[in-house]
């Protein structure tokens, strides 16, 4: 299980999306890492990759909207980090679409996505939860 209770920030909407994101990423890593021949799992990899790409954007939008609702003071900084990450994902997707859809590159992408998400959820997103709690959970 990739999701861990210590990743929880205490805001249900965001926690549930994070859980979904980690579950999907875990699924993606399992497909990328299983022993099946690369050509045979290509369709599965592409499908999961498409989902991940869309879900990350969907989640970022919801998370930013929530920050707006609670007048989170670090929204702009958070938005910028999201934008940089979205751009990094798009760059990988462009590389894959240009035909460099190889096992090595996909594994690198999966590893970066994993480490980035863990750091982001454990560090920046925790601050949203802290702020919401300070405000007495009122949004």
């Amino acid at each position, binding site marked *: 299980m990739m999701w861990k209770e*210590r990743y929880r920030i205490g805001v249900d909407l965001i926690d549930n999306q994070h859980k979904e994101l980690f579950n999907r990423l875990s699924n993606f*890593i399992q497909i990328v890492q299983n022993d099946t021949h690369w050509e045979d799992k290509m369709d599965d990899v592409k499908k999961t990759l498409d989902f991940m790409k869309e879900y990350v954007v969907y989640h970022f939008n919801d998370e930013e909207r929530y920050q707006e609702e609670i007048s989170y003071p670090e929204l702009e900084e958070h938005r910028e980090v999201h934008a940089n990450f979205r751009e990094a994902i798009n760059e990988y997707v462009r590389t894959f679409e240009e035909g460099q859809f190889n096992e090595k590159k996909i594994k690198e992408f999966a590893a970066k996505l994993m480490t980035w998400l863990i750091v982001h959820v454990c560090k920046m997103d925790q601050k949203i939860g802290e702020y919401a709690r300070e405000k007495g959970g009122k949004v």
Partner: protein
Amino acid sequence: MKAEYVNSFYKATQDVFNLMLDLDVERGNIKVVEGLVSSRNANVVLGVTGDLKGSILFSFTKDMTLEMVRIMSGLEMKTIDNFVSSALGEVANIIGGNALTNLTCYNYICDLVPPQVIIGEYKSLSMANKKALLIPLRTDIGEFDINIFIAENE
């Protein structure tokens, strides 16, 4: 070699291990070594440029590397493939980034060169007869080293 360099990297390592792996890191006795040398299997080299110049080497055993990636992914890893080595490189890169932030407190402004992961033994001896520092570190899942070989840019 100034204590600020060691403290910045040690603190960054503690913070990142705690954050990403939920592990505490303890420091052993620092040694002076002839250059960047590792007999461990999984090594990451980070270049530092700017006010300080040089390299940092992180050295892990294969077992520890696989366990670190298992903790993050929740999945058993059998070999150090490109997924595992990329994840290890990223962890080192994040530590490096945090260390550079710590160094700004001492008025050093630096940049990182992207990580280079080397599977197998690593050896890069100093040509200028300058010494490196080796920080031995201990966690519940194994021991690893950080070699620091940086100096003020002249």
